[in-house]
């Protein structure tokens, strides 16, 4: 009946793979729900203001600069633009898998699995590059 050994101590504080699955599952569901809600708000504003206009998607023009980056989108959302809200919701959606990967970094750290900490950090780096720096 001695004090808990190092490994027992570690086991009690590390998350098991099952705990990880459960937390990640909740994270994903919350992200998708939040994203859908923000997109829906944007949809109502957008359709109320522009619903009667003619749809034109056969000509490719590309989106204006304010809709191509995170700061611009948040700015348009602040101006209560429907499209700003929709894109902000889509950003939440894109951020959901990123949050999942970021969470996995912490989870592998707690499991002291440093090989997978590196693997996960690498994947996180690629995602952040795509979202923040690929423009």
């Amino acid at each position: 009946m001695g004090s808990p050994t190092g490994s027992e101590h570690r086991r009690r504080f590390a998350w098991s793979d099952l705990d990880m699955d459960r937390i990640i599952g909740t994270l994903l569901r919350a992200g998708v729900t939040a994203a859908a809600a923000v997109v829906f708000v944007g949809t109502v504003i957008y359709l109320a203001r522009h619903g009667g206009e003619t749809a034109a998607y056969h000509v490719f023009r590309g989106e204006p600069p304010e809709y191509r980056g995170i700061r611009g989108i948040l700015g348009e959302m602040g101006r209560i633009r429907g499209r700003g809200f929709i894109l902000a919701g889509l950003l939440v959606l894109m951020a959901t898998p990123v949050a999942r990967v970021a969470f996995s970094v912490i989870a592998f750290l707690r499991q002291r699995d440093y090989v997978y900490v590196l693997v996960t950090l690498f994947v996180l780096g690629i995602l952040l590059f795509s979202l923040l720096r690929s423009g």
Partner: protein
Amino acid sequence: MTILEFSAVVAAASLAAGFLGALTGLGGGVVIIPFLTLVFGVDIRYAVGASLVSVIATSSGAAAAYLKEGFSNIRIGMFLEIATTLGALGGAFIAGLVEPRIIAVVFGIALISSALTGRNAHLAGPAGALPDPLAARLKMNSSYPTEQGPVDYVVRSLPSGFGLMSVAGILSGLLGIGSGALKVIAMDRIMRLPFKVSTATSNFMIGVTAVGSAGVYLHRGYIDPGLTMPVVLGVLAGSLLGSRILKSSETQRLRILFAVVIAALGVEMIVHGLTNRF
């Protein structure tokens, strides 16, 4: 057509696509792009951008359900995501360099091959590959729950699986699809993982892979809020409905029908691309 009418029709079609995609396991994104481009004449770059975002939504929703069942292997998924996200980033850059009609032709070929294989098709691959020592060192070997209790499995041919995952990533970034079928082939037939582990882990990876290219599409101005909104909401609602319904022999017949539709759309995409109508 007004924006209101257009949004309603696209949302309804996306709902049907998401529903059938979840029910048959073939994915909803694969029919949405041909539908938008062939029926509505939407520019394929907008269509790919919208589909890519809907793929993130359905994958995240489905992955949450799969995780609860304990079939997903997070280590395998995370390791292979190195390949798929790098591929997706590359695929998105390629999409900005080639003509849209080339994308249409490649899309058509991908549609036909996914109709032929399907992610639920379970064909026995060549046996005999030994358990992969690198996979063992990376603690990828695990077990999955069955009615008779947990069953152990080992990973084989990790490098080949990794290679095929890069291809799946490139196609995902180029075409705005999840490339679930190819991911399952890599894990099920090459790495010889149990089928349920392959499908669950593939689903787990699809969202992360899609984000790898979605950022590039956003910065290029390919993600249009007005078009993406009905597609995402429709596909998400449809796939949630579809995943609630138990798979039966009826869905098997439906799967074949859906596969025929997908193949026909594939031919149509190739013809349109080759005759320069994109």
